[in-house]
């Protein structure tokens, strides 16, 4: 049975190529049709693939001609379809398609319409390559490629300096992660001689679980995780993601929430066979994930920009996914990945709709001020779907996020790799999540209870002709919102009873016996109740702070003082990086390397030789005085020298 999986990414690439080549001359309608049509075809193809699923060998492999070949190294264009990639395939094409459709409306009045769709398509192409690859290197194509697409899309408004800077930052920070990833790949190759999963993992599975830090699998796992921290915005490489919000909102939804940033999680899950044998690495993954979850959530508490809130929330949620991976329950991680794709995609699209409605305004307080009486009145669909998504992310029962997050927290607490400490951290982060999400919801959609009626005129920065007051978005935007709303609501149900995880089990069955779990009283229910409690607490607090007692936040801020400043300024991490790395590096390069070594030392030496030669030439010139008797003296001197030499100097005959 041939699936010709290569067609799926290539469809998206075709969309890209067509728009790149002809988009400039086409109307937005044609460009949009091309830009959405090909992902739609890809989605359709993916659905067809799903239909074929029962009939397939698992995993299904198709290997085409080589991409790179040198000596023992052969990297084919090869695709693999197993449970994990199937899930990813559906998420990417499905959510991707919705966001494409949404963008038709969102971007309708933007310049560079065709460019936007070309780039979205190329992103899809790379993302699909990433998830369908049958080897690490092909995955790396997608990995780097999505980075490129992300770079281009973050900098989509390239005339804004901040946007182009953010794009560059994203790319470079990702590259730092890729550095680790690459080294990991080198290790894999030098140890196992292949990058293909189907050849690599069987070899890995023959190896025992490693005990210390120095084992090859541990090293590989850690290096791969460095790559994951870059792509999935974990400590310490998360800094690019908040800045990435400079891109158009659909981009944030697609790339910086639903798909690309989860690539790290996908990659770690894909490498389960390796991680399972590297418990120390799992420990690191868990710790980093948990800390990131908490850390980002804490920053999210005080952000005023709606997209920044969502960005930090994304970082935080990605932390959860890594917590799951770190606890060696990759299934839970992937589950959360999926639900997160729904609700975070929805949140971003909703935020986009809000921004659209408010003419480009992103500051929640200004939105509130710009929509007298609460934005929910003007944009009911947006509000409703945003509400669903907020509930989902906060872990309100029966929304999708509840199931996945709950599962993760439970597993972290009980799994042999987990510990109560990280569970506590995760739960605290959940509290914060609930708080800041509802804070965002209340501030954005509800009227200011303090009754600041000073309705600032909505700003007309976004697009053209949209400065006519808050309004609901067109159907082309709201329909995707609604579809995602439904998914965010019910998407968790497939995980009930661990069905989803069992579906994925074949992928994660790596031959390592599970560690004994730490049983807790009451089992999963205890944890769930706690989680729900925390979520509701967050909701309550947000309600108190932002609807009931709007003066409280300021008072609290004043009483907290330094801590407030610290969090409000995002722990000054960007500034720290700037002062410790970026600026010294530039200064070092300029002053020491360029001016010092290059111009001073090397060229100085070269020129020094030149000067010396000229100096010698000058000395010779001075002897050429033109005086005959001087010349004769030199001749006589030469004669004496020659004779002395001839008679006493040289070897005797």
């Amino acid at each position: 049975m041939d699936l010709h999986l290569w067609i799926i990414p290539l469809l998206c690439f075709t969309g890209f190529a067509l728009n790149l080549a002809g988009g400039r001359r086409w109307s937005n309608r044609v460009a949009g049709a091309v830009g959405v049509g090909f992902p739609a075809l890809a989605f359709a193809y993916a659905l067809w693939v799903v239909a074929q699923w029962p009939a397939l060998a698992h995993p299904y492999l198709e290997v085409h001609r080589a991409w790179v070949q040198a000596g023992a190294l052969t990297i084919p264009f090869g695709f693999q379809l197993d449970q994990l990639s199937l899930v990813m395939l559906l998420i990417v094409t499905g959510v991707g398609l919705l966001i494409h459709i949404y963008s038709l409306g969102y971007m309708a009045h933007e310049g560079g319409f065709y460019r936007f769709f070309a780039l979205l398509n190329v992103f899809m192409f790379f993302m699909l390559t990433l998830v369908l690859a049958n080897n690490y290197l092909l995955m790396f194509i997608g990995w780097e490629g999505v980075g490129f697409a992300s770079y281009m899309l973050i900098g989509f408004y390239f005339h804004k300096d901040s946007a182009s800077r953010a794009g560059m930052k994203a790319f470079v920070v990702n590259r730092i992660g890729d550095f680790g990833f690459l080294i990991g790949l080198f290790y894999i190759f030098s140890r196992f001689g292949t990058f293909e999963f189907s050849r690599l993992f069987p070899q890995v599975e023959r190896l025992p679980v490693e005990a210390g830090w120095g084992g090859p699998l541990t090293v590989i796992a850690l290096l791969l995780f460095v790559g994951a921290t870059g792509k999935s915005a974990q400590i310490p490489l998360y800094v690019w993601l908040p800045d990435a919000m400079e891109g158009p909102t659909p981009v944030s939804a697609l790339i910086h929430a639903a798909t690309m940033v989860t690539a790290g999680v996908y990659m770690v899950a894909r490498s389960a066979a390796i991680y399972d044998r590297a418990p120390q690495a799992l420990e690191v993954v868990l710790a980093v994930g948990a800390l990131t979850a908490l850390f980002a959530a804490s920053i999210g508490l005080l952000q005023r920009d709606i997209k920044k809130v969502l960005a930090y929330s994304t970082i935080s949620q990605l932390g959860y996914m890594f917590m799951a991976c770190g606890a060696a329950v990759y299934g839970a991680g992937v589950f959360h990945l999926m639900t997160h794709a729904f609700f975070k995609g929805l949140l971003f699209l909703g935020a986009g709709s809000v921004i659209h409605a408010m003419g480009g305004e992103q500051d929640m307080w200004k939105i509130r001020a710009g929509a007298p009486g609460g934005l929910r009145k003007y944009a009911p669909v947006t509000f409703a779907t945003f509400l669903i998504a907020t509930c989902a992310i906060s872990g309100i029962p029966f929304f999708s996020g509840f199931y996945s997050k709950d599962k993760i927290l439970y597993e972290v607490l009980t799994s042999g790799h987990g510990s109560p400490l990280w569970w506590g951290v995760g739960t605290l982060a959940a509290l914060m999540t609930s708080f800041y999400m509802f804070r965002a919801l209340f501030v954005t959609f509800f009227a200011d209870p303090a009754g600041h009626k000073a309705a600032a005129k909505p700003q007309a920065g976004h697009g053209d002709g949209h400065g006519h007051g808050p309004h609901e978005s067109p159907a082309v935007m709201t329909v995707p919102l609604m579809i995602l709303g439904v998914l965010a609501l019910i998407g968790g149900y497939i995980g009930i009873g661990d069905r989803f995880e069992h579906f994925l089990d074949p992928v994660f069955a790596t031959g390592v016996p599970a560690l004994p779990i730490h049983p807790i009283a009451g089992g999963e229910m205890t944890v769930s109740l706690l989680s729900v409690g925390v979520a509701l607490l967050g909701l309550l607090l947000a309600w108190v702070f932002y609807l009931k007692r709007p003066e409280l936040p300021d008072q609290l801020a004043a009483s907290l003082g330094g801590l407030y400043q610290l969090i409000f300024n995002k722990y000054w991490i960007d500034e720290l990086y700037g002062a410790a790395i970026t600026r010294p590096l530039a200064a070092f390069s300029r002053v020491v390397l360029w001016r010092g070594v290059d111009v001073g030392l090397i060229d100085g030496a070269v020129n020094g030789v030149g000067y010396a030669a000229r100096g010698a030439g000058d000395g010779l010139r001075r002897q050429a005085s033109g005086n005959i008797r001087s010349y004769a003296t030199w001749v006589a001197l030469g004669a004496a020298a020659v004779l002395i030499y001839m008679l006493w100097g040289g070897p005797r005959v």
Partner: protein
Amino acid sequence: MSFVPTVYYLRILPEIVLSVFALLIMLVEGPARGGSRGRRAGWLALVGCLAALAAVAVQAAHPGDAFSGMFRVDAFTLFLHVVLIAATTAVVLLAMDYLPQQGLERGEFYALLLFATVGMGFMVGSVELIMIFIGLEISSISTYILCGFRRHNAQSTEASLKYFLLGSFATAFFLYGIALLYGASGTTNLYQMAAQGLQVSPDGLNHTGLVLTAAGLVFIGLGFKISAAPFQMWTPDVYQGAPALVTGFMSAGPKAAAFAVALRVFYVALQGQSAAWFWMIWAAALLSMCIGNLGALLQTNLKRMLAYSSIAQAGYILVAFAALGPSGASAVLFYLAAYVAMNIGAFAIISHWAHREERYVALQDYAGLGFRFPWLGFCLSIFLFSLIGVPMTGGFFGKLFVFQAALNAHLVGLTIVALLNSALAAYYYLRVIVYLYMRPQEESIACAPFTAPLWLAVAGCLAATLWLGIFPSQALAYALKGAQQLLR
């Protein structure tokens, strides 16, 4: 009273031919007055040169000694005869362009050129020191006069005087050396000296010290002529002051002839002492290269720059000289041929562009000339590249040959110095090219029309330079043969 065999005269036929034509020139020049003065002499000289070249063929057909073993026709003699007479031919042609332009057109010029060539011919063909001395004097005295040919010009006469005084000074050393060699060996025939080994004189005394002193003194005289350091001081001044064309001639002919003499004296007569004099040559080579190239770096007068360059080139030839053996000698011969071709070529163009009273010999005068006169500029560039040692030119192959010989003789240090020097030298040659092509023309310098003789001469030099660089096999074979017969 025995008759002198006719074949003896055939063996010095080129010299006879040249002398006869020089005499003819003097004869026709006497009565000639008015506008055509010198023109006729030029054509006569040209015919004489060509006839002399033909005479070389005759000479070649009759190898052997002549005149009580004073003169020897062998491949060595023939090779240098061809080189020298060809050089003179080129200079004669150039003179037909240069002299009228300078207002110097007088038949004596050609006569002197031919006489100088006669002297050089005797220098390279003689195997007897007194004959060599006379040949040397003929060529030197002719050259002294040519240097001062622009006799109303203070620089020209000053150059002539400097060359004359210092040249005579050095010649006295040379002569002293000859005297000592004679005293040590009882002969002045180089091959007889070689046969004796020069260790022990006929009277049974050990004369090593005397011979070595003689070798040193001889080298002083010859070193002066080839402008080898430390006897090079006169070169820049004289080259600068002499008429440009004469400078070209001087840098080629007499230098080549002096090298030939040096080869005969050191390689043949003093071969037994090579271990002693080798280091003298070595040091002179080293000094010449370094002094020549460093001195040239800052020069802005082209003639002066080429003077330093010729010191450096002498250094390269001395590197080959220090290599000893047939490979060293053949490298010297080949390099001389290439050097003569490229140097005369360069001076041909320089002396044409120099214009009346040699107004334009500074580097900045050359700005933009390359594009103004593309063909001449191209030719000059080729000559300069040849002097630098860029492949496909005679200069390169000559250098290659020299370095190969030197390395073969394990002169690694000297070769490295020579290699670095040739890189250094690239700077000042290239500077001329930079001016030719890369600097905008500042003032439009006047330029006389190009005449056919000029073209002929330049084309000849160009052809020779490229021929020696691209298809050197034949010339190489001759040089090798010359070297072998020299050492036989």
